């Protein structure tokens, strides 16, 4: 088994794109159904959703507010999973409920272990 990091990105900036409290509650259920399904297969390592607050530090120690990249989508959460290969990791990631929202994305990255020369 190899370790993969799933980075969930969505639009935290556009006001109209933000969910109502009721919607958010429903989204959280969907999110936990998805992660729970991965964990039920014993393929969940850890990770969580992130608060929308953040700071970005750039070279020369320039600090700006917001966890925001130059693009509209910010990282909203990350989880680490176990999968036998990229295909399986992508299959697990593709069920992520945030992908129901237009413009959102999940990035799948393989973790390089110091013990793993691959």
């Amino acid at each position: 088994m190899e370790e993969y990091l799933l980075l969930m990105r969505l639009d935290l900036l556009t006001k109209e794109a933000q969910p109502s409290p009721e919607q958010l509650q429903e989204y959280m259920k969907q999110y936990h159904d998805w992660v729970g399904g991965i964990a039920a297969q014993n393929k969940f390592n850890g990770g969580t959703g992130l608060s929308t607050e953040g700071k970005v530090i750039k070279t020369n120690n320039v600090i700006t507010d917001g966890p925001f990249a130059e693009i509209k989508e910010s990282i909203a959460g990350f989880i680490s999973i176990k999968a036998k290969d990229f295909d399986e990791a992508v299959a697990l990631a593709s069920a992520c409920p945030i992908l129901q929202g237009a413009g959102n994305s999940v990035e799948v990255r393989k973790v390089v272990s110091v013990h793993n020369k691959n």
Partner: protein
Amino acid sequence: MENGELIPHLFRMEYRKIVSVLAKYFGSPHIDLAEDIASETFLTATQTWGINGIPVNPAGWLYAVARNKAINQLKRNAFFEQSIAPEIKSTQSLFTSMVESDIDLSPGNINDSQLQMIFCICHPSLPREAQVGLALRILCGFGIDEIATAFLTNRETINKRLQRAKQKLRELEIAIALPQEPEMEERLDQVLTTIYLLFNEGYYSVSGQQPIRRELCFEAMRLCYLLIENQQTNKPRVNALLSLMCFHASRLDARTAENGELILYDDQDQSLWNSDLVSKGAYFLNQAASGSDLSAYHLQAGIAYWHTQKKDTAEKWENILQFYNLLLQLEYSPIAAMNRTYALSKVHGKEFAIKEAEKLRLEENHFYYILLGELYTGINNSSARVYFEKARELANTSAEKQIIGVKLDKLDQARPYNNSG
């Protein structure tokens, strides 16, 4: 209570108190001595009470005799001269009064000693089954035969296991004391695991004798309550564990038929559920909610709470599913994975749950085939039958095979309705 029942009951209750106080006094290397004195005390009681009748205050009588036996033992014993108080050996009367005042069998010291003993017995250097065995013997006052029955083994095995464990406590000089922070957190987790194992041994083992299994459950709850009574150990997750055990124990009367067979949840007579234990569970769950600690016990207590609501509502299963989702993120276990999938079927339907169940890949586990059988029931009864039969083939005990047989019978009864659409 007749004398025939009173004496064994009293002995079990008082044995553990006397052993804990004396062992605390002598130190953990001398647990055997404490046990011997307690046993001798009961032997003397049996002989004397048989002739003179039971005294007015039997517990007080036992304490006085135990104290005298301890003092006599100390006077004789070389270990006292060398290790406890060489300087006072010359003054016998002073010695006697000192020991008398030190061997404190007051309710407060009995509780403190038992609590400290829990931490000693649940020391991480001991194997888990030895911890449970010692807990049953020293903290619960069970006889060796009773422990052997509970573990489905024989006296010799249990005796050896306990002797090895006590040897280990001697070698490592484990103190009978409460650990200090920050060590407390980790040691408390050990204690809670052992208490929960003790409870599960009583609740889930499908074989073994019914009265003993019941007592295992209540003893586990009593030990957990000892932790709650002490400020240092009264933490949210301890309350969560007690809450969980109260909720489960509320169904003890309803889940066993007169012939000893297990009655499944859906078939239980709800009027036999113990509402007093349900409200106690709710009380401790409320206590557990202080602070930000969200342990696996909290989540399991939440699940157990919803199981005290027999009616199938969307709210019930949605909550159970979410608790299982979180529980699995904290710690994976096959049984939690399967229970989650069952909850999923209640929330999102059987077809959806079947797809998720097939990803679990727990082919060696007979419960997995029971789950698949349940999910296929009403969807495809002939597949359900194949899975239930596979489960029965893999089941370890006759009690489990019997439960699966009930499910197969139900499938037969359901068939005409399904066939007619």
